[in-house]
């Protein structure tokens, strides 16, 4: 026999069936342990904090139930930040899709040679590669009242006098959304380009034979073929954009006067400026619930595809 005495005894200790049953869990164990320690445990702790009356600052926190939730949900600033976050997220997702799809279709055109496509793909992906800090610095310089953008717009006669892009309560949220659209479209572009290249050509040829116009080909072939991808990345983008913090904090800090206050900056200020860690945990749990409800639909959609 090839087995030694020691091996044989080990094999007899744990039956073959048991070993086969627990093997998958052993393979998954490292990931599960990591996720539990780094994600599950902190989430449970934060939920616990949200049910106490100020932790960390208070050495003996007392259980207060849902009092923090009522306080946060009735705060006018919270409601303003929910409104801003919703506007920011919805507009970002919509325009990410439109710009990403437009660039993807441009890159997928037959007249574009593969080498040119590769080079352009690298160039168009650059906004996504920058970190939030770099994006904030670049756009704060560009959109400075005495900056390049105002200079060009004034020279072209589009505006009469310099616009305070990030300082005016009327314009700030729109400027911020624009910057986010600029920073996030490459993700859509790359995914949709891959999707476009996977659409079989016969469909288009059949459509041409049937006398379809460009617009009909787009709406009846391209979009339906891409729709699984579009729904997936739209949901993911929705979840990610809802949790935005660094871009907003670096550019406007939630100002002027809550004009660009989003859920992320609201939570941060509660924790690190007013030292109300329980309220901040409450706000974080609310963000978690909102993200999870979108994630629920995402997972269900993915399962339906399989």
């Amino acid at each position: 026999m090839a087995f030694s005495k020691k091996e044989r005894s080990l094999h007899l200790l744990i039956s073959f069936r048991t070993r086969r049953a627990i093997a998958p869990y052993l393979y998954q164990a490292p990931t599960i342990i990591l996720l539990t320690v780094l994600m599950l445990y902190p989430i449970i702790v934060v939920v616990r904090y949200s049910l106490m009356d100020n932790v960390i600052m208070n050495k003996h926190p007392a259980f207060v139930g849902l009092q923090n939730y009522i306080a946060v949900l009735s705060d006018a600033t919270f409601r303003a930040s929910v409104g801003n976050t919703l506007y920011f997220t919805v507009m970002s997702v919509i325009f990410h899709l439109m710009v990403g799809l437009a660039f993807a279709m441009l890159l997928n055109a037959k007249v574009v040679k593969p080498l040119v496509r590769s080079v352009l793909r690298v160039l168009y992906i650059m906004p996504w590669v920058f970190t939030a800090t770099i994006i904030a610095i670049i756009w704060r310089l560009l959109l400075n009242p005495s900056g390049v953008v105002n200079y060009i717009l004034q020279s072209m006669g589009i505006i009469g006098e310099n616009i305070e892009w990030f300082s005016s309560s009327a314009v700030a949220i729109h400027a911020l959304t624009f910057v986010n659209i600029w920073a996030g479209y490459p993700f859509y572009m790359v995914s949709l380009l891959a999707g476009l290249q996977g659409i079989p050509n016969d469909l288009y040829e059949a459509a041409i034979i049937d006398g379809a116009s460009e617009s009909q080909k787009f709406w009846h072939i391209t979009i339906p073929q891409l729709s699984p991808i579009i729904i997936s990345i739209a949901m993911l983008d929705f979840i990610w954009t809802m949790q935005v913090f660094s871009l907003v904090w670096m550019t406007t800090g939630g100002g002027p006067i809550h004009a660009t206050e989003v859920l992320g900056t609201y939570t941060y200020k509660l924790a690190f400026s007013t030292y109300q860690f329980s309220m901040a945990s409450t706000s974080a749990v609310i963000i978690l619930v909102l993200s999870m409800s979108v994630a629920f639909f995402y997972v269900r959609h993915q399962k339906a595809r399989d």
Partner: protein
Amino acid sequence: MIRKRLLVLLLSLTLLSVALSSVGAQTTKAGDVTIEFIQWWAPELPAGSLRAIMDDFEAQNPGIKVKLISGPYSNTHDQIVTGAATGTLSDVVGLDGAWVNDLAKQGAITALDPLMAATNYDASQVAAIIKLNGKSYMFPVASFVYPVFINLDLFKAAGIAKLPTNRTEFLQDATKLTDKSKNQYGWVLPLSLQTPNGVQNDVMSWVWASGKSMLKDGKPDLTNPDVINTLKYIQSMYKKGLISPGSFAKQEQDKVEEFVNGRVGMMIDTLAHINMIRERNPKLNFAISALPAVDGYSGRRGLPYAAWGIGISESSQHKAEAWKLVSYLMSPEVNSKLVSIAHAFPGNVKAKPDFVATDPLFGKGFEIFQSGNLANEFVGLPVAEQLMRSFDEEIQLMLDGKQTAEKAAANAQAKWLKSF
């Protein structure tokens, strides 16, 4: 097969032990104590200079090693809060006066009085100890004062001969300096909400410069006439278009950039930026002046300041060694050396930085420092940053034309009282 498994097991154990041993490789010799010092100073000083001071300390105190943990200012604050919450805070802590109240309440920093008593420390040599409820928490190692910077070339071009000494002159000079067609303004006001210290340095400084106060018996008193008149004064400048546009999103570094580029004639800024301004624009001809007071005021002028403060963590296992480092940095010789390279004013009253004799601009700054008094009423207040931010929001609404100065002051007062 067995041999292969044994080999793999041996290899994994070796790797694991190597990985784990490198984690605990802080203390070099048995008996050596390593203390950590978290601060934002090293990046703002010439490279290696703070480390050199630590090396001198280690040479004079065999058995103690100092590990520097450096990061940007805003990041340091968050690190201290979370470090205190998790019990992993460094032994010696770099502090800003605005953080002391909340960190003391959190139990993050320890009272220094027992350590002072144990070593018979002479507290009178310290310029200004930050206390809370009678207990000392922070020593200012270096102070950076905020005088007015004047662009002399723009002054000459506008035909202004004298530096402004009171509010009327400042307003007149700003009017002469402002020329929208050339994108040139008299004054710059950073009111962004991320780091709202514009409220402290650029707004409330006007109140303190005239010897007035925003507090009464330690409680907020924002509705007093001095504060309201200051708000109205700033509002008048804003309405006349004398302030560089974009105030609501402007931060301190944007203010300095505009001054360096010759787009504003006057700004209130820290002396610490003198060398940076000289580096960024060697051709810029600028001077330092005291902050103007209300017309007719002749008393001592309050000078806004920011300090590099130092304290000791409550959870530190090596408080005695940490105190040795603190008293070392506060000693006259070392303090002089440190503030000389930082271009700051000393925390030890017996120390004197060398640059005041050699550099005329710093010499003028030192003069202003000695003839006035350090005034920053936000030091030691609870949730100081949030107080500045809530006041900032009311000021923004006022400047936007949405409320009067009186209403702004009243709203801020109401918000502040909730935190006291």
